[in-house]
């Protein structure tokens, strides 16, 4: 691939000219992919703190629903009935907690940190480009995202509080202002925040796709790309195809809420025993369908969970091979499996709607797609396991996280087989079983992937290493607490424990589950507190960690051929050429146990390649 606008000489010159840039242009309104990646990452960290805190409050409520939380009532006066000395949580506050926890975690943390954060950091480095294809658009995309974050955070302080209709915002609950307090101003802020987020993600996606297609360095053919780069490409494509459905739905919801349309609102709505009438004495809303929103939402929603997960799967493949000191097993089938997962993710959205009232024949079609997606997912797991067989594993922090992803991907993926079958889903839908499933696979794999990537590529972010001992302590606390928090949720879900429920013990059949809920809550608190280790390690290492060399992990990829952190323009001289795949570890024909992607083919390899023809032995 040839370079487009970024000639190496011109750029090297620019780098000097840029050296005296003002702080604000260099680090705030930056156009440099690395700075923008770090900006995304740190913003996502702040959002994760907020959403994590919300989760802790949710868990306290589920374990001890009628408890008087005197201190919390002082900190969150709007959330607790402070009057009369009571500090019991209000139901509207609880609805707001789980709505905003889900929204912030899914979009503003787990889509942002792996995709926008590491995508921006790694794509030019792994592809061998000076920067992203459109640096200005990149900066614009971050600041659009930032506005979205501000809008979402502001929504906690408007009118009756933030949105409270669930992160899925099903109308009519989210459309009728009188249906739930959060559907007053809070829901409007939610929609506006989401529109900013989607606009930002779309700009990012355009940049990702263009950069990966057009700016790859010479020799980096698609089948020599690292799995992370493949994941970023697929994620960008998924985002570009899926998010338009949600932005359309959001705009329709705005119109239903404020301008009297009826996209999602059927004829005959009666709220609080009073028909919702217009001035003419007829129903205000006529002929809309609440199911339309669900179709549009989940048309995005399901590809979205793969947008969260695919980067983590890519990181895991890169990290696992490095610390196993062994080539990635079944590289082509790994690429194929990822593409299959991406493609199938567009025809499975209806599995969120098996009991929604849609035509049962439609449910059958969606069950087919959903069960099929288990095949490429299983292929990935088997390939990872085969990669570990006969390995020489180095258990540094990144490796622990990568193995954690494999473990979570197995545990969370298997419960997907239960839920994919539409009839068992009747019993399990909307229970904690579903919460267990997606927290393990989608949230857990994405989160562990981000932690792994952070400890692995930290040198390329800040030029320093993270502390390995602190990192391991963080891993072990998180890994054990994560399983203790989410694994028992399967069990209470099967017993019928509902999701999104302010006080489960109103139901006789849920009363015996309180001890398990207490155990889950204590685990969740441990999980939450353990993250302090990460914050300490992150900020301390960024400023005072051990300085990293070019290639501290003995890795093969292009990002390890330049300084840590990379200079402006990424390589001081010419961009290196690629001659092989990034997973050449333990090859007995070489004196070193790892062979860089930039290493020219040896005479023997050239001979072999000529004999086998051009199509084989891409790597």
């Amino acid at each position, binding site marked *: 691939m040839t370079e487009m606008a970024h000639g190496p000489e011109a750029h090297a010159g620019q780098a000097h000219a840029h050296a005296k840039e003002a702080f604000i242009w260099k680090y705030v309104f930056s156009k440099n992919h690395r700075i923008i990646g770090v900006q995304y990452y740190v913003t996502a960290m702040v959002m994760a703190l907020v959403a994590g805190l919300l989760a802790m409050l949710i868990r306290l409520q589920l374990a001890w629903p009628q408890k008087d939380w005197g201190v919390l009532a002082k900190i969150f006066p709007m959330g607790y009935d402070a009057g009369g000395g009571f500090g019991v949580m209000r139901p509207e506050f609880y609805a707001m907690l789980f709505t905003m926890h889900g929204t912030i975690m899914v979009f503003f943390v787990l889509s942002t940190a792996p995709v926008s954060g590491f995508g921006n950091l790694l794509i030019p480095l792994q592809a061998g480009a000076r920067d992203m294809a459109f640096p200005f658009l990149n900066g614009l995309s971050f600041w659009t995202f930032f506005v979205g974050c501000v809008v979402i955070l502001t929504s906690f302080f408007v009118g009756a509080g933030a949105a409270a209709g669930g992160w899925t915002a099903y109308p009519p609950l989210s459309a009728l202002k009188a249906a739930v307090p959060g559907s007053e101003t809070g829901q409007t802020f939610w929609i506006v925040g989401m529109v900013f987020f989607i606009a930002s993600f779309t700009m990012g996606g355009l940049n990702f796709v263009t950069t990966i297609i057009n700016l790859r360095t010479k020799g980096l053919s698609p089948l020599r790309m690292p799995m992370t780069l493949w994941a970023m490409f697929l994620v960008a494509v998924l985002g570009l195809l899926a998010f338009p459905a949600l932005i359309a739905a959001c705009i329709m919801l705005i119109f239903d809420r404020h301008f009297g349309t009826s996209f999602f609102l059927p004829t005959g709505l009666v709220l*609080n025993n009073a028909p919702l009438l217009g001035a003419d004495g007829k129903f205000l809303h006529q002929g809309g369908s609440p199911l339309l929103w669900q179709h549009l939402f989940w048309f995005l929603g399901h590809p979205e969970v793969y947008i969260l997960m695919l980067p983590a799967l890519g990181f895991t493949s890169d990290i696992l091979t490095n610390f196993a000191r062994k080539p990635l097993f*079944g590289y082509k089938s790994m690429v194929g499996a990822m593409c299959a997962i991406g493609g199938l993710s567009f025809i499975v959205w209806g599995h969120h709607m098996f009991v929604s009232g849609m035509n049962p024949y439609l449910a059958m079609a969606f069950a087919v797609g959903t069960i099929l997606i288990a095949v490429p997912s299983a292929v990935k797991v088997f390939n990872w396991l085969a990669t570990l067989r006969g390995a020489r594993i180095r258990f540094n922090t990144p490796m622990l996280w990568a193995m954690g992803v494999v473990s979570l991907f197995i545990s969370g993926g298997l419960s997907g087989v239960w839920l994919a079958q539409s009839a068992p889903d*009747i019993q399990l839908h909307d229970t904690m079983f579903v919460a267990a499933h997606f927290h393990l696979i989608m949230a857990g794999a994405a989160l562990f992937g981000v932690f792994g990537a952070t400890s692995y590529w930290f040198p390329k972010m800040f030029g320093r290493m993270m502390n390995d001992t602190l990192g*391991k302590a963080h891993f072990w606390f998180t890994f054990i607490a994560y399983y203790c928090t989410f694994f028992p949720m399967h069990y209470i879900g099967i017993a019928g424990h509902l999701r999104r429920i302010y006080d489960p013990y109103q139901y006789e059949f849920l009363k015996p589950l309180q001890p398990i809920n207490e155990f889950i809550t204590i685990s969740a608190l441990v999980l939450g507190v353990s993250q302090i280790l990460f914050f300490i390690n992150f900020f301390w290492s960024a400023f005072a960690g051990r300085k990293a060399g070019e290639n501290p992990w003995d890795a093969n990829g292009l990002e390890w051929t330049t300084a840590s952190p990379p200079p402006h323009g990424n390589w001081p001289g010419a961009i290196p050429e690629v001659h092989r795949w990034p997973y050449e570890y333990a090859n007995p024909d070489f004196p070193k146990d790892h062979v860089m992607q930039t290493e020219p083919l040896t005479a023997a390899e050239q001979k072999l390649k000529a004999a086998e023809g051009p199509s084989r032995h891409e790597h």
Partner: protein
Amino acid sequence: MLRIASNNRQSGTVEVSRMGKLQGLLFALATVALVALATFYFTRTWLPPLKSDRVAIDHAIWLSLVVTGAVFILTNLLLAYFSWRFQDDGQTRAAYWHHNPRLEWAWTLVTALIMCTFLFKALNLWAEVTSPPPADAMLIEVTGQQFAWNVRYPGPDGMLGRTDHLLASQENPIGLDKSDPHSTDDVLLLNQMVLPQDRPVRVQIRSMDVIHSFFLPNFRVKQDAVPGMTVQIWFTPQGIGDYEIACAEHCGLGHYRMRGQVHVVSADGFDKALADAAAQ
């Protein structure tokens, strides 16, 4: 394929973790502990006692548990074994082994075969559960509203009276049209449902305001109540007793207390039980 080079590696830049062995062992132990914990949890009584004819759903859940449980144990134990067995010794190299088309095709096809079996069973079961109700099934209408279940029986004429949402009010929450002759004998209950044992019932599910979900944990029944739609489901109650109705879809502040009761009675005692419930 499995070639192992014995010459020393020339690393040196990486600080190989001295705690490598311990970490590998810990990972193996954690994974084994996870398997043990999961096995312990999943073999205890779990589903609410079944009180309907939908036993096939329980069987499907059990089958899923057995198959995915076996895969879970096998893969996690492999992960444990590999992390315990294949640790870096600083001396030898890993196996240069990175593809084996026959093995890859085998595990792809075996997985596909298992999944197709699941699919075949799942589609058949779904067709059974969503099949049209038997002709003799008893008709009941359930209408969700914030935050109550309105249950209506057609009465002796067997016909539900007309409803018009424009007529809805505090006294008439579902907007029953009293001018319709079929409506006069309709029996209305609030948060109560009386069912005769062993007779199929078909339930028409509606909503006045937002989406609710009609959930009978003991009957393996769950169906969203969507405003603007009437969705019909059917099942056969088995086992006399009192059970709970839950709302499974977040519907607002009172979602958590949108609770009702199902009383399953003998076929002989049904008329009296219904009259008693209506008199309350």
